[in-house]
């Protein structure tokens, strides 16, 4: 797979679920950051406008009225698959889904739908993505999101906020930030973005923030080698001290056997030339020393 996540300040974006609590808040915050939010969708909504943009009953109507090409879906976990189908049927080919708790069999169906139609899907359980200084789709806090040369991908939201914040304080900003999300079946994986970051002129180095469980980091390491990725790559992997078999929040952090352990991920990444840090402080110091 080769996924191109580049949006810009002109990309017209709608928010599905815009009349909800999260929809109202984040449509406002995204607009403030510079995102071109052009409308919202809310089936059965009684209002015609939220934060100065029109609210439509479905994606078909929203696309017709606004020309939207991307959507941020802030709907419930059990409604997410249906909302994604609505967006894709309306011709939207860029979907960001922050919703947590999407059933994994729904995610499989959504995955197949996106592959069949060529839609870019970031999520679920993603804090969102951003081209720093231009536009963000999702929740990424502005304090963590300063423009700079570092590409950033993360499975965890909060850990990436903290890392982005400390890096920004340490003088290192980000280029394109993609929260791939904490679910095992996701629209965009670390490995899918390797060709994009290799070609992206603004990105001078890449940081991934991973965690135990699943095989995302191992696949990413293989992709780096396959594409002969030439920029410096750094990694921080959470869950080094987690007991085997215990799920801590993310469905992806259920470790089966040695596959997906911290040691296995570290070994795979280091073999691909990635510098793996043990703590946040070391990571910030190491990345800053290389890029500042």
């Amino acid at each position, binding site marked *: 797979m080769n996924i191109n996540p580049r949006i810009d300040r002109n990309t017209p974006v709608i928010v599905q679920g815009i009349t909800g609590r*999260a929809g109202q*808040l984040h449509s406002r*915050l995204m607009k403030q950051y510079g995102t071109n939010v052009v409308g919202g969708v809310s089936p059965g909504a009684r209002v015609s406008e939220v934060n100065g943009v029109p609210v439509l009953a479905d994606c078909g109507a929203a696309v017709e009225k606004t020309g939207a090409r991307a959507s941020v879906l802030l709907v419930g*976990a059990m409604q997410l698959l249906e909302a994604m189908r609505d967006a894709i049927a309306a011709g939207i080919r860029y979907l960001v889904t922050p919703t947590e*708790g*999407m*059933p*994994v*069999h729904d995610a*499989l*169906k959504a*995955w*197949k739908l996106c*592959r069949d139609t060529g839609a870019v899907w970031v999520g679920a359980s993603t*804090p969102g993505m951003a081209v720093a200084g231009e536009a963000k789709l999702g*929740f*990424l*806090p502005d*304090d963590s999101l300063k423009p700079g040369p570092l590409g950033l991908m*993360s*499975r*965890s*939201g*909060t*850990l*990436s*906020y*903290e890392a982005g*914040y400390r890096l920004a304080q340490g003088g290192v900003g980000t280029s394109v930030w993609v929260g791939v999300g*904490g679910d*095992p*079946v*996701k629209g965009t*994986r670390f*490995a899918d973005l390797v060709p994009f970051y290799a070609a992206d002129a603004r990105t001078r180095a890449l940081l991934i923030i991973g*965690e*135990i469980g*699943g*095989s995302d980091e191992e696949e990413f390491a293989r992709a780096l080698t396959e594409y002969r990725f030439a920029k410096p790559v750094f990694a*921080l992997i*959470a*869950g*080094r*001290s*987690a*007991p*085997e*078999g*215990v*799920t*801590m*929040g*993310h*469905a992806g*952090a*259920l470790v089966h*056997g040695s596959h997906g352990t911290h040691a296995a991920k570290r070994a795979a990444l280091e073999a691909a030339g990635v510098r793996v840090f*043990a*703590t*946040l402080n070391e990571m910030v110091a190491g990345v800053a020393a290389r890029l500042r």
Partner: protein
Amino acid sequence: MYLLEHDAKELLARLGVPIPPGRLIGRDETIHRSALPPGPWVVKGQVPTGGRGKAGIIRKAATPQELTDHARAILGATIKGRVVEEVRIEQQVDAAREAYLAFLLDPAAGGVRVILSESGGVDIEQVPPERIFSEVAPAAAEPLAACVQRLASRLPREIAPAAREAGELLARAFLELEAVLLEINPLFVLDGGRWIAGDAKLVTDDNALPRQKALELLVKARAGTYPDVARKHEHGFDYVVVDTRGEIGLLTTGAGLSMMLIDELREAGMKPYNFLDIRTGGLRGETKRLIQVLTWIGRGKGVKVLLVNIFAGITDLGEFSRLLVEAIAAAPQLKVPVVARLVGNGLPAAREVLAAAGIALHTDLDAALAEVRSHLSQELR
């Protein structure tokens, strides 16, 4: 959630999967012969982990005396940090062959990996790769059934029909239960082609629980057996005691950041008590969730200090601090000093509210950890 073998088998039996007759016995129960199936038996310790045979908690019993002895030896044993609270006593199966069948979610391929082998029972890792047949299929009834048929046709004639039938039935169960993993090892194949699920390893998707009524009922009925899932289902957030002798209670949000904090505390020689992803966005101006968490942490006998670490992208820290101070007052079980490290929106208001309650606010995590350390060492004196 990782179901105990007994629960997995009983769920599968309801979907038509043949299993050996058996009964669940708890630690304090007496074994009544009349309630058991006819012998000989196998006594199987129920813990959610693999390698039970090697760990010695699966034993065959030919006589009632052996049965009692084995049950006594297995109940209460500790395997990979888990205490065996229950055994399943099951009728032994006189199988002609032991095959292997598994369905597991393959996230990278976006489908379900189906694995079939004529050789099960032993470590599947020891079986030569040319005798294991495997393919990925989309997670839907027809393609999965077709995949099972393709794989079964490559097995020896004596077991192919049984493997096909078992595979088709279990593929439907995998979809119906919204499973992440369903492994039948061994799959007993009897003379004449009948088959029985000798074991069942079933991991289901917690996110689907609200629409999986049978699983939801199971979690409610056996909350003591599945405490983390039951708690998550009831309260809507994740809390796990990671070290019953831990000294530092954690009030944190975000799974990744909370895990990283636990890693860094342990690296520095400190002992965190719990993992918590409280989801500040879910507090909605109420103290209920905070009081609940503080009460749980208060049960940790070794907890000497509470560390609050919140990176608030969106949450208003002023409001969060007001709720926190209120919740601390309402949870008298927790009588330990509080160290707060907050970053994000509304910091000045947070500082004021916390100062009035005698809590110092740090923005630097290292400074907060230094204060945590000073509380731990005072405790030593």
